[in-house]
C-alpha cells in the first residue's frame, strides 16, 4: 500500500522564513526584470514612442514635413468640425464590420471543412491559404484588372449574359461593397487558421458520445464546436477588426477613398492627409482618433466575452 501523498493534495509553498530565503527571493524577482527589459524597450520604441510623437505632432503646426509652432488643440478642433468626419467614421465601421461578418463565418466554415478532411488535407489547405499569401497591393491590382469596365474578364462575362459592363468602382455604394468583399476574400484564411487550431483541440470522445446519443451535425456544431470555439471567436474578432480598421492598401490601390469619399475610411483619410494634402498635423489628429476607435472596439469585444463567461 502506497502512502505517498498525491500531488493534488500537496500543501502550497510556505512563505520564506529565513533572511537568506528572503534575499534569494528578491534576487530572483530582480532577474525577472532582465528578461522583461528588452521587450519593454522594443514596446516603447515601436509603440509608445510613435504614439507620443504622433500626439505631439497633432499639437503643432506643420508645413509639409516640417513641424512648427505649438498650436494646441487646433488640429483636433478642425478634425471634429470637419463635415466629412462622420462619413469617414461611418465608412470605417461599415467596411470593418462588413468584412468581419463575411470573413468570420467563411473562416469558420473553411476550418470545419479542412478539419473533417482525411485525404488531400494539405492540398486543400494550400488552396484555401492562397489568397492570404498574396500582398494587399497584388490583391487590389488583380481585382482592379478583373473588374475593369473596358477590358476586364468580369465585364466580358456580364456583357455576354446581357447585363452590360461591370463598373463597380464608379458608384459610391458598389465601390464600398467591392472593397469590403475584396478585403474579406483576402483575409478569411487568417480566421480559418485560428479556428483550425482550436478545432483540433476538441476531444474526439465528445463527438463520439454525441453520435452514440443520436446527435447530428447541427447538434455537434452547437453543443460541442461552438462552446469550444468561444474564446477563439473573440480572438479572431479582435484580430480581424484591428486589421480592417487600420487597413489602407487595398482601398488605396482600387479607389483611393473615392468616388466622393465613399470608401475613405479613417486610415485612408490619414494617408490622404499625409501624402496628398501634406497636412501632417491633421493626419496625426486623425490617427489619434483612429487609435481610440480601435481601442474602443477591441475593449468592447473583450468585455462582451467576459460578460458571457460570468
Amino acid at each position: 500500500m502506497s502512502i505517498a501523498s498525491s500531488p493534488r493534495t500537496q500543501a502550497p509553498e510556505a512563505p520564506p522564513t529565513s533572511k537568506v530565503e528572503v534575499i534569494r527571493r528578491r534576487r530572483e524577482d530582480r532577474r525577472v526584470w532582465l528578461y522583461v527589459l528588452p521587450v519593454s524597450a522594443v514596446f516603447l520604441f515601436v509603440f509608445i514612442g510613435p504614439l507620443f510623437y504622433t500626439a505631439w505632432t497633432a499639437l503643432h503646426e506643420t508645413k509639409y514635413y516640417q513641424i512648427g509652432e505649438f498650436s494646441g488643440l487646433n488640429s483636433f478642433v478642425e478634425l471634429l468640425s470637419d463635415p466629412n468626419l462622420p462619413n469617414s467614421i461611418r465608412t470605417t465601421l461599415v467596411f470593418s464590420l462588413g468584412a468581419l461578418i463575411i470573413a468570420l463565418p467563411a473562416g469558420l466554415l473553411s476550418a470545419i471543412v479542412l478539419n473533417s478532411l482525411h485525404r488531400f488535407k494539405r492540398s486543400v489547405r494550400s488552396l484555401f491559404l492562397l489568397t492570404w499569401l498574396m500582398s494587399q497591393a497584388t490583391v487590389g491590382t488583380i481585382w482592379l484588372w478583373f473588374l475593369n469596365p473596358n477590358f476586364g474578364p468580369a465585364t466580358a462575362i456580364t456583357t455576354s449574359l446581357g447585363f452590360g459592363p461591370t463598373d463597380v468602382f464608379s458608384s459610391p455604394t458598389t465601390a464600398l461593397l467591392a472593397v469590403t468583399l475584396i478585403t474579406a476574400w483576402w483575409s478569411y484564411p487568417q480566421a480559418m487558421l485560428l479556428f483550425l487550431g482550436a478545432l483540433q483541440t476538441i476531444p474526439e470522445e465528445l463527438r463520439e458520445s454525441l453520435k452514440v446519443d443520436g446527435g447530428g451535425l447541427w447538434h455537434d456544431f452547437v453543443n460541442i464546436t461552438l462552446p469550444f470555439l468561444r474564446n477563439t471567436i473573440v480572438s479572431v474578432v479582435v484580430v480581424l477588426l484591428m486589421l480592417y480598421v487600420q487597413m489602407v492598401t487595398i482601398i488605396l490601390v482600387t479607389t483611393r477613398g473615392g468616388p466622393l469619399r465613399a470608401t475613405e475610411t479613417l486610415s485612408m483619410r490619414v494617408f490622404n492627409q499625409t501624402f496628398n494634402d501634406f497636412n501632417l498635423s491633421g493626419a496625426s489628429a486623425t490617427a489619434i482618433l483612429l487609435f481610440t476607435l480601435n481601442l474602443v472596439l477591441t475593449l468592447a469585444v473583450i468585455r462582451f466575452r467576459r460578460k458571457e463567461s460570468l
Partner: protein
Amino acid sequence: MIKKRWRFAVALAAAASLLATGCSGSASESEGPVTLTYWDFLDPSQDNPRAKALKENLANFEAANPDIKVELAVVSLGDMLNRLPQAAAAGQAPDVFKMFTPQVPQMAAAGAYSPLPAAASEITDWLRPIDTLAGPDGQVAVPYEYRTCAFYYNEKVLKQLGVEVPKTYDEVVTVAGKAAKAGVTGFGTGFSDADNSAIIATFFDCFMSQVDQPIWNAEGKADFATEKGIEFGNFLADLRDAGALASSVTSDTYGTVADGLANGTVAMTVLGTERIVTMASQNPDVKWTSLPTASTGDDTGATIGWTLGIGADSEHADAAWKFIEYMTGPKAAAVMATGGEVPTRAATYDEAFFSTPEAKTVNKIAEYVKSNSEPHTYADDWIAVATGLSQAGQDLYLNKKSGSDFITSAQDAANK
C-alpha cells in the same frame, strides 16, 4: 570548450572588421567616381520608343563621363509626389529627378529642390521662358520636354456619323452626343484622382489658358470660379446631359481614356501631344488637331511638360547639373525626339535628325507647341487644385451638379 572559444574569436573578428569598414566608408566616398541617383517614371527596360531613348541617353552620358555613374530608380509620378517631400525632409532626396511642370512650385515649397548652380544661367536658348520653374529660392528646374493639349478624334467614327471635325466646344457636345447614341463614348475624360487627376487637371489647365482665365490671384489663392471658368464646368455638364461621358468616368484615368481612344471605344478627347506618335502607331484612325475654341475663340493652351531638377541637399550638385545639361542638350534631346518627345532648346533642332523624314512628326508637334501654347506660373497648391477638380467632377456626374457648382466646388477645395 576550445571549439566554443574559437567560434567566439571568429565572431569577434568579424564584428571588428565590419566596424572598421563602417568607420572608413565616408572617407573613401569623397574621392573617386560619383554615383548620381536619378528618379524617372520611364522604365528603360520597357519596349517603347521613349524608354529606349532614355536608355540610350543614359548609356551615352556615362560613356562620355566615365567618372559619373547614374543609378536610375523608376518611380511613378504619384509616388514621386508622395516620396519626394519625405525624402527631402529625411535628407535622402535623389540627386536628380523629373517633375511635371505644374507641380514644380509645390515640390519647391516642400523643400525637394536645391537651387540650380550659376552655370544654369549660361543656357539661353530655351524655346520658352523658364522663370515659371522657380521656387522660394529661385530657379529650381529646367524643361526637359515640352507638350501641350491637342484635340484627338477617331476619324472613322466621325465619318460614320457623317459629321465634320468639331471646331468649338459646343460642336464637340453635339457630335459627342451623336457618337454616344452610336454606341461609343462621345468624349473621353476622367474624374479619378488615382493618377493625380492627370486628365481632368491637364484639360482644365489648357482650357483656362484658352479663355485667358488665371487660375490664381495675386495672393496665390485659387480664383477661377468666374464666368470664364464656369464655361469649363458647363462643357462637362453639357456632355453629361448629352450622355456623352463614359459610365466609368468617375474612375477613368489618363491611361484608360488613352486606351479607349486607341481601341476605338472613345470618339474624341483632349490629351497631351506626347501621345501623338504612339496613337498613330496604335490606331491609324486616330487623328489630332488644335483645341476646339471656347467663347474667346482662342485655341492657345498651356505649355507643360517634364522638367529636371537637382534634389535637396545633393552632395553631387555639380555632377547633377552636368547630367541635366547633357539630358537637355542637343545630342540627348535628338535621341529623345526619336521617342516622340519635343526638345526644349533651339540648338537641338540643328541636329541632323531634324532634317530627316523621321523627324517630320516631332517637328510638326514642336511647331504646334510653339504656336498653340504659352507657359504660365503655378502656385504651390496644384495637387489640391487637381484633386478638387476630380472630386467636383465626380459630384457633377453622380449627383448631377451644375457646371457652376463644379467650378465653385473645385475652387473651394483648392483653397481649403
